[in-house]
């Protein structure tokens, strides 16, 4: 059974009165435990595709199924609940909250899952251990290197045991060495059973995945 399924999905934006088709009639299917790369040049619509698949956005037409459930017509609050439970995000620019410690950044999704403070801290420590940052839990983001910050972001993506982890250019702001480390962690997570969807424009990074979906001008090739 497919974990995530997109059927004839289109997304049209209105820009200054002109309709722009960011994604056009895209269909794809991702099974549990897969490591998939969505690849394309900038402006190809790969980010929009990720937003649709990651429940950050709803399609203009077509249907998105997560675990067999149609999520195309849900409202913002319902989508937020699904993102909280089923999806973890890793962004190019880390997106950590600068004024709170690593451990509090990691436990953030659990606040909205209604987990109490003690359990949040326990689980955040475990998640930071998984990405090799046990010694850095009390550090603020600006006290960490880029690679460490991205590992904190991965721990945050993992913490609520999501079905899918989306990584949007996760190595884009990192040097080669930290980038490799981050990719190894993602590969490792995939081997432990996590489903990972990687968005990138770099072939080298896409090579970590088992399967690559190419997108150009909003269409899947």
């Amino acid at each position, binding site marked *: 059974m497919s974990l995530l399924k997109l059927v004839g999905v289109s997304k049209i934006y209105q820009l200054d009165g002109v309709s722009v088709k960011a994604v056009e009639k895209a269909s794809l299917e991702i099974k549990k435990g897969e490591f998939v790369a969505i690849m394309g040049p900038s402006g190809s619509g790969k980010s929009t595709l990720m937003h649709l698949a990651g429940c950050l956005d709803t399609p203009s037409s077509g249907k998105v199924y997560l675990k067999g459930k149609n999520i195309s017509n849900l409202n913002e609050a319902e989508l*937020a*609940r699904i*993102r909280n439970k089923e999806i973890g*995000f890793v962004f190019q620019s880390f*997106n950590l909250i600068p004024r709170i410690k690593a451990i509090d950044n990691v436990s953030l999704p659990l606040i*909205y899952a*209604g987990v109490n403070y003690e359990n949040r801290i326990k689980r955040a420590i475990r998640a930071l251990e998984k990405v090799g940052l046990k010694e850095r839990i009390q550090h603020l983001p600006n006290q960490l290197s880029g690679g460490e910050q991205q590992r904190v972001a991965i721990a*945050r993506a993992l913490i609520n045991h999501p079905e899918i982890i989306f990584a949007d250019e996760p190595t884009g702001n990192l040097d080669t060495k930290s980038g490799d480390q981050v990719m190894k962690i993602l590969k490792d997570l995939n081997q432990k059973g996590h489903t990972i969807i990687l968005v990138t424009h770099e072939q080298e990074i896409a090579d970590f995945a088992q399967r690559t979906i190419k997108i150009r001008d909003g269409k899947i090739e």
Partner: protein
Amino acid sequence: MINFSETTGLALTALKANKVRSFLTMLGIVIGVSSVILLLAIGSGLKNYITQQLADLGSDTIFVMPGNINIGEGGGGGTPGAGVSLPKFTENHLTKIRTKVKSIKYIMPYIESNANLSYKSKAYITQLSGVGPEYPQARNQAVSRGSFFTNSQVNSSKRVVVLGIDVVEELFEDQDPIGKKITISDQRYTVIGVLEEKGGFGGVSYDNLAYAPWTTVLDQNEMDNIQSFWIVAGSAGEVNQTKEEVEAVLLEDLDEEDFSLLDTKSLLDTISSILSVLTAALGGIAAISLLVGGIGIMNIMLVSVTERTREIGLRKAVGATPQEILLQFLTEAVVFSVCGGLIGIGLGIGGALIINRFIQTTVTLWSVALSFGVSSLVGIIFGVAPAAKASRLDPIRALRYE
């Protein structure tokens, strides 16, 4: 849905991250709340003091004043300066009232004049009041040493004087003043008594006055007419009847415009209502600063929402609903106003206690509750717009915001 203590915790962390800014934002509310409490405390204190002073006189007291004073009749009439008119009362009136008005307990003339008191090398300028022997009883201020003058001393215009405690300290220091001769405006007077300490309010004191028989004061100042009468009715219930009777007697010789009858109750009512309006006006002006404080909160919250656009986008991406974001930012605004309100209450009460050393202040519970309630409400009202703005942000755009 996340609970109340979680939201408050989040709000406090956010406020702590920008300590100086948070403090400055709160300052508007702090100043607003403390000044509302302080001004209302001064207003209530003043009112309590005056009520207390008039209560000393008793509710059965009537003053007969020269001129047409409309106070206490709710008319609000009387052109400015109408009260300033030369007294036309004579001894004849005194005798007439004494004989014709049966419901009075006593009547005594009350004359004010300025006098220069001196004893040996010391001098003291104060007010010399010409009164009758009933004064200590009427004023509710007993004689602590010596005695007050008698009816016969009044009738024979004796040069005797009774002093307030402050005058005694100025002129005699530690000496016993009783029996000593002092000079008042070139005339020799014998000190026969000292009045007990009464205190005062904002510089006005009853302890720095001197009292002589009214007949003596009339002579000394070469006055023909009596300035005013101080009447005490037989009982509080008879005040209105006594007023009518006194009025009837005076109208035999005088016009309506020549005199006014004031009783303590109507004076008290008038002063109370003036002070209430004044207090409300002062409180209202102070409340404007609460409004300004609220605008300050709104301003800083709007800045905060813009600054934290990416944070809001991220919170939404990891599962915060629009409602939860709204609640978080609304709570931050309310925490501002509540913290500001609490500090303001502290400062307001503290300030009132300090001012209380100089003039009487009374902090009322309702003024604390009112200003705290209004400040909290201000936080909610001015927090809604920024919080709604935050909750409506599109997570995708917010995450990309630079």
